[in-house]
């Protein structure tokens, strides 16, 4: 139940989100368009407040221009465009197309503004009117002036939305409300609520019977609402002084001509009607935009409460969109805006206008800023007007981004992705060596292609160069050059791709080598970050990892077994020591016994000797097992190895004196400083010299020598063996003895202990047999 609700909730959330964002965008764009291109915030606020089209600036300007025209009619001035002559563009629409670029621009403007509303038409027309008139006026004859007035009246009078009464010097000239006298409020027809009366000096405006303040402080400023003659700084023409014009505007303008196609003037005639319609339409649009905005906001707030499973929704949508090939998505993403834009241009004829502005950019006399500004404004406006297309593109992009985010490898699902995967899988079937060899081939081939490409260009120039005209050559050269450049770019890109792969491989190999070094240095810890991108190297790393694990377990096993061995030896030696203690104690007691027969005393002496040897052996075994397992504590200090040798010899003086050999020394007088544990080194040399004495040929000499060799202090003990030495024997091995029968007094551990102790002190122990010469060399690093 709960999960079902959850799913519903997430679906609702998605719906709210999509709708909310869509509405927000629609509303926002509509509003932006109105704000940016149709009069800004003020006019919009006014529009929102009042439903009356007469409140719009368009209407005011319309009235101002009409008054202008009427005053011209009254005073017999030229009313531009209504004389039926060459510039009567109202009658002569066919002539436009042949006109100059500037005129085309006018057409465009009119076409565009026809969409927006009659206001724009009237404004641009009137503005054009005035400026043209100013330039052309002097050329008009009185007949032309009169004709223009008549023409103007002819067209104007049909529009009953705007009633006028024009009199000059008290004489009625023109009116389209023949049955009623407009200057008399009582005779006004019904449905007209706007009244303007210009008496030659000032205008009086009434709306719904209330007079409006038009002139303010009496000075006209740019942007003022009413641009009527009568300001102190805007008086109007001298001839207007005698004119008297009354204008009435309908509250709700009606359509006075149905024939929109046959008579192109119907639009012109129904200007006020269209103005009011447009005004209503604009209001509706603004309200719609606002409604969209608020609805979107509300939906988004709802979404905030429902957005729990947001991520999951994203994934679900991505799973759907992920089924589409990546190429389609890209195509859609590129095609949608293009289609939209083209459609936009086609539909509104905006294309020609934009084109005209774009071409204007090429003209020196049109300022760049103006053209670009216009252009960008146009593009923006077009964009804002087509919010549906925009929405579509927006959601397409959203889906695309969502897809990319939730399926980072979605680009692989597609034709190119499949091709790449196929190539990769084929590449993978080859061995690492082959792949590594093939990669430079690729680069080589690319380089070759590049060279061929350029050579082609060169040859083409050489061969056809003199046969072609200059322009043909140039065109051909350009095309070839472009092709070569494109080729180069493509080849460079593929080379970079190759290089990237190579670099990855190189880094992988480097890491692998580093890892091997670190393992060699005894770092058996696992490194979880140690992987490689290249599958072959990854395979190698995995194998290395296995080797590492094997080593790790082996080393662990070894340390554990060593430790166990030491413990075992310690326990055994302890267990041996206890009975040995009794044996030795009682032997000692027996030795003190008097009156024993001679042969018993002899037995006791043998027991005494052997028990003593056993005791020494137990101690030696214990020491050597500790040393071998690296648990031997060494107290390293700086000492003179020469002195140590002298001391050892002095210590053993008695034994040496008793032995049948003599000891010769070659020890320098100068100190030979080494870092070692004196007690251990004493034991080393004691064993060595003791050994030498024990196994030397009777009457031979034992040489004890010491010298400093480079960074090492090298001490050696040489003796001539009394027995033939077996060259293949490991003399430093445990329980190895010169006398295989093991009947002499040694434990067989002397050399082994010497070796272990030397190594524990950081030295090296070497043993050499040259014929019967037995040489032991102990080297320790010198201290400088």
């Amino acid at each position: 139940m709960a999960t079902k609700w959850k799913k519903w909730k997430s679906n609702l959330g998605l719906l709210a989100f999509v709708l909310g964002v869509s509405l927000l965008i629609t509303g926002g764009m509509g509003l932006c368009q109105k704000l940016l291109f149709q009069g800004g915030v003020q006019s919009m606020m006014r529009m929102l407040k009042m439903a009356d089209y007469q409140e719009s600036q368009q209407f005011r300007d319309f009235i101002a221009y009409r008054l202008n025209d009427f005053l011209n009619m009254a005073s017999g001035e030229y009313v531009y465009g209504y004389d039926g002559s060459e510039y009567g563009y109202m009658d002569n629409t066919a002539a436009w197309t042949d006109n100059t670029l500037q005129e085309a621009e006018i057409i465009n403007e009119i076409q565009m503004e026809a969409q927006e509303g009659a206001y724009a038409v009237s404004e641009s027309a009137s503005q054009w009117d005035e400026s043209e008139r100013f330039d052309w006026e002097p050329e008009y004859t009185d007949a032309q002036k009169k004709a223009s007035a008549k023409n103007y009246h002819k067209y104007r009078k049909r529009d009953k939305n705007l009633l006028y009464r024009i009199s000059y010097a008290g004489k009625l000239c023109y009116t389209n409300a023949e049955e009623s006298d407009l200057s008399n409020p009582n005779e006004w027809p019904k449905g007209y609520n706007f009244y303007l009366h210009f008496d030659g000096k000032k205008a009086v405006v009434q709306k719904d019977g209330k007079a409006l303040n038009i002139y303010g402080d009496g000075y006209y400023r740019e942007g003022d609402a009413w641009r009527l003659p009568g300001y102190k700084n805007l008086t109007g023409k001298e001839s207007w002084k005698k004119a008297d014009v009354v204008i009435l505007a309908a509250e709700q303008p009606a359509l006075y001509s149905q024939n929109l196609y046959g008579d192109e003037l119907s639009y012109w005639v129904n200007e006020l009607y269209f103005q009011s319609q447009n005004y209503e339409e604009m209001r509706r649009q603004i309200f719609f935009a606002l409604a969209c905005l608020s609805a979107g906001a509300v939906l988004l707030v709802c979404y905030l409460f429902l957005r729990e499973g947001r991520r999951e929704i994203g994934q679900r949508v991505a799973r759907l969109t992920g089924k589409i090939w990546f190429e389609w998505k890209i195509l859609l993403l590129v095609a949608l805006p293009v289609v939209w834009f083209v459609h936009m241009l086609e539909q509104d004829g905006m294309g020609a206008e934009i084109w005209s502005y774009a071409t204007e950019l090429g003209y020196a006399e049109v300022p760049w800023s103006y053209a670009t500004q216009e252009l960008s404004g146009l593009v923006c406006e077009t964009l804002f007007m087509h919010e549906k297309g925009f929405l579509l593109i927006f959601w397409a992009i959203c889906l695309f981004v969502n897809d990319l985010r939730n399926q980072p490898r979605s680009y692989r699902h597609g034709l190119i992705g499949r091709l790449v995967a196929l190539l990769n899988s084929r590449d993978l079937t080859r061995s690492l060596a082959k792949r590594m060899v093939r990669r430079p081939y690729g680069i080589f081939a690319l380089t070759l292609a590049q060279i061929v490409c350029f050579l082609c260009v060169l040859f083409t120039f050489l061969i056809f160069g003199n046969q072609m005209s200059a322009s043909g050559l140039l065109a051909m050269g350009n095309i070839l050059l472009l092709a070569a450049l494109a080729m180069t770019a493509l080849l460079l890109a593929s080379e970079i791709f190759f290089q990237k792969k190579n670099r990855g491989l190189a880094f992988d190999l480097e890491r692998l080598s580093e890892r091997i070094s670190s393992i060699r240095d005894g770092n058996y810890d696992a490194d979880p970050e140690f992987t490689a991108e290249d599958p072959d190297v990854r395979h190698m790393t995995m194998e290395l990892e296995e080797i590492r694990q094997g080593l790790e377990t082996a080393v662990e096993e070894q340390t554990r077994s060593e430790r166990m061995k030491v413990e075992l030896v310690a326990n055994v030696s302890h267990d041996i020591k206890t009975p040995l203690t009794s044996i030795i104690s009682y032997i000692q007691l027996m030795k003190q016994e008097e009156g024993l027969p001679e042969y018993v005393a002899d037995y006791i002496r043998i027991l005494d000797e052997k028990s003593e040897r056993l005791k020494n052996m137990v101690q030696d075994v214990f020491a050597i097992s500790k040393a071998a397992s690296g648990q031997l504590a060494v107290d390293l200090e700086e000492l003179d190895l020469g002195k140590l040798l002298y001391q050892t010899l002095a210590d053993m003086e008695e034994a040496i004196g008793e032995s049948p050999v003599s000891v010769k020394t070659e020890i320098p007088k100068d100190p030979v400083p080494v870092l070692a544990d004196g007690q251990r080194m004493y034991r080393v040399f004691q064993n060595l010299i003791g050994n030498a004495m024990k196994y030397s040929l009777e009457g031979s000499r034992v040489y004890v020598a010491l010298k400093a060799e480079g960074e090492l202090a090298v001490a050696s003990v040489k003796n001539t063996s009394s027995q033939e030495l077996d060259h293949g024997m490991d003399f430093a091995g445990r329980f190895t003895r010169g006398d295989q029968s093991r009947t002499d007094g040694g434990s067989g551990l002397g050399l082994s202990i010497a070796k272990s102790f030397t190594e524990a002190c950081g030295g090296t122990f070497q043993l050499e047999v040259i014929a019967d010469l037995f040489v032991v060399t102990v080297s320790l690093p010198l201290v400088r």
Partner: protein
Amino acid sequence: MNECILVTDDDREIVKAIAILLEKEGYRILKAYDGLQALDLLMQNQVHLVIMDVMMPKLDGLSAVMRIRERKNIPIIVLSAKSEETDKVLGLSMGADDYVAKPYNPAELAARVKSHLRRYVSLGGIHTAANDRIQNGRLCYHTDARALYVDGEPVRLTATETKIVDLLMHNLGRIFPAEEIYERVWEEPGFSSENTVMVHIRRIREKIELNPKEPEYLKVVWGIGYKMEKMEK
């Protein structure tokens, strides 16, 4: 009255051997086979010295030593099969006066017992701190008389030995190279003096050490020289 010695070891034969050894020396022996028994016997008898094994059932030797130390000041010799330096240090820090590794040398053990007892009984543990005396463990050197006493007994030294002892006792713990000893004792430049000095050192050791092969006082510092160890107590 003969001094009473408590011998404790879980190996009855060892106890018996030690008992025979020490009875020959004229001591009265009490035998215990575990720590608790040893403590009981200590309560009931006047004991002058304790010989204690470490690894024993019921109460191990080191714990027993600690218990004894709470009440009594008698000398305790720990006897153990553990011969490591660390074991020795541990035993001594627990309150033992001496540490003898198994298998022990009976003569050495007897000598140690004698030495400790003499110091405990005869001198009563009183160290008379006089200006003309240098006390160092079992050794006492009378500087004015240039006489050396071991456990209160005078030691007969030759003139050269006396000079060496004089030098070393005045500089407890300091290491002297053989040349320096030679120069200061023989008052001649010391070349190849190692053997000469060593001979004398060995002789002095035989007179003052309980086990001359494992000296406690007169030590060789291998590769550097010789020194008289400075004792803690």
